[in-house]
């Protein structure tokens, strides 16, 4: 059994274009999207504001994961303390009410933050698909600069309009300082 679906083009992840400044990258994204390409990803050495909107990607929803994490931590922490003091191990501390909720607030708060922080970090890592030791873009030697001082735009081969030569020329026309084929 062969797994190769359509051996028409050499297996490419996409075409990678290099830019020197984030402004040039954004200008190129606008041009390329204007020509109808839609499967795009950009790689930058630092966060560039509004880049996901330019690329037409959906905004992240990680904040809801963090909110849920915080709620679980807070309610869980408060519930645990109530259960311990009311059910599991009720002790009379100097005649104070068993359900002395103000005393439970510090731990409830700390556990809210703890769980929310874990959801933030784990959520970010998992939604980003990390850890991911291999990714096709790393096959391009020059991609090392994406963590230093260069900005990259990748038109991925899954794009409906994808054609190696026309993508290359579109990217060059959009101001790319260099264009690379990314092997899959």
């Amino acid at each position, binding site marked *: 059994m062969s797994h190769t679906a359509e051996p028409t083009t050499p297996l490419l992840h996409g075409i990678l274009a290099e830019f020197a400044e984030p402004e040039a990258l954004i200008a190129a994204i606008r041009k390329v999207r204007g020509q109808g390409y839609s499967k795009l990803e950009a*790689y930058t050495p*630092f966060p560039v504001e509004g880049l996901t909107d330019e*690329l037409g*990607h959906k905004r992240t929803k990680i904040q809801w994961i963090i909110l849920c994490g915080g709620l679980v931590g807070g309610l869980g922490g408060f519930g645990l303390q109530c259960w311990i003091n009311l059910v599991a191990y009720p002790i009379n501390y100097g005649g104070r009410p068993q359900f002395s909720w103000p*005393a439970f607030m510090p731990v409830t708060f700390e556990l809210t*933050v703890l769980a929310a922080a874990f959801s*933030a970090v784990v959520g970010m890592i998992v939604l980003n698909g990390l850890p991911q030791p291999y990714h096709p873009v790393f096959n391009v030697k020059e991609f090392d600069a994406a963590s*230093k001082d260069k900005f990259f735009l990748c038109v991925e081969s899954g794009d409906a309009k994808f054609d190696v030569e026309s993508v290359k020329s579109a990217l060059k026309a959009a101001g790319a300082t260099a264009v690379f084929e990314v092997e899959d």
Partner: protein
Amino acid sequence: MSNSHDKHHEPQPPVLTGQHTYGSLSDKVASIPLDPKHSKGWIFGFLIAFSLFGLLHMAIGWVFFKGVGVWGITNPVGWGFDIINFVWWVGIGHAGTFISAILFLVKQQWRTSINRFAEAMTLFAVACAGLFPLLHMGRPWRAWWVFPYPNTMGLWPNFHSPLIWDVFAISTYATVSALFWYVGLIPDLATMRDKATFKPVKMIYAMLSMGWRGAASHWERHQMAYLLLAGMSTPLVLSVHTVVSFDFAMSLIPGWHTTVFPPYFVAGAIFSGFAMVLTLLIPIRKFYNLKDMITDKHIDNMAKITLATGWMVFYGYIIEAFMAWYSGNQFEGFMMLNRMSGPYAPFYWALILCNGIIPQLLWFKRVRLNMLFIWLISIVVNIGMWLERFVIIVTSLHRDFVPSAWDIYTPTKWDWATFLGTIGLFLTLIFLFIRVLPMVAGFEMKELLHHRKKHQ
């Protein structure tokens, strides 16, 4: 000097000087850990720190072998050096979170070049702090009894106790600080991976960076997570020293049972933390030639925060004395008189000198720009804040209600060895950190540079 800019509300404060490009910032930040040679100064400093760390092993070994009786703690003063040092170290950590979270939320650009280092300092300070309550338990191998877990004894912790709140506050603080620090580090670890040439080193950075490639959607999630972590860390850091102060304020001991404690402790924590950042960064920026990233403006700002928080702390001292008189409570009144004129009076007046009087020199711009002066003042503040905890703990406990229970507390050489040992642990970790991880947040510096370019 760039300080003439301050008065005219220049939109771009000179928090990054020199002719930098994205590439040069990367190079500069990564060159320190990637330098294959250890400088003589680093080796010298590391050896001193590591020897003190050895002392810690010895001190802890002896405490494990003989028990906490080797310390000077006695009957009225059951909390001696261990709790003094615990509070001192936790306080030091607060500046790191203040810089990385609070200054981030209020968009202070000058935090960018110092936040990574300050956060590392937080982690190491909290690690040192955590040792003391553990050792003070006497049976540290049962430390996990403080956590709620189902056990065959059917026992649960007492959630009405500030000491249990403290367990949760400190462990949450340590964990969240580590997470926040790591999230900030991931992109820089990727830079280190791409810069490293020696294969094993490259592989280690590659694993730590988890294959970060700087994709736009990744950055968006990263930034959202970072922002929310900063938002959570802000109340967290305020809660931590508040809870630490509850350890005292919730008790009935004269000198402890006061409502001014939480804000006064938080201010003191930030005060001592900034002093420690100054103590460490002034030599480091000189030694590693980082003056164009950690500029005089940074030192100036940190000195101003030290001065401001110093006054908040001083206000706490004034209120403590005032309330001791105004409350009309004879035990409170006696406690204050004893503090000012009793056997530990020299410590009290030394603390007023160190925290209240000497930092007033920071009002003068010439002092704030003289690195030697400011470095010495920061050390004085560190000592002053240690004395503050000594005075609060020892003078309140050693003469409380019944004169027959009074006694004098004297630390032993093992107290000192444990304390010096934790300074060794702290400095050892700092020395290792600057040699293996980028101590300036590279990607944030590039973002700052981009921001500056855009507004020129």
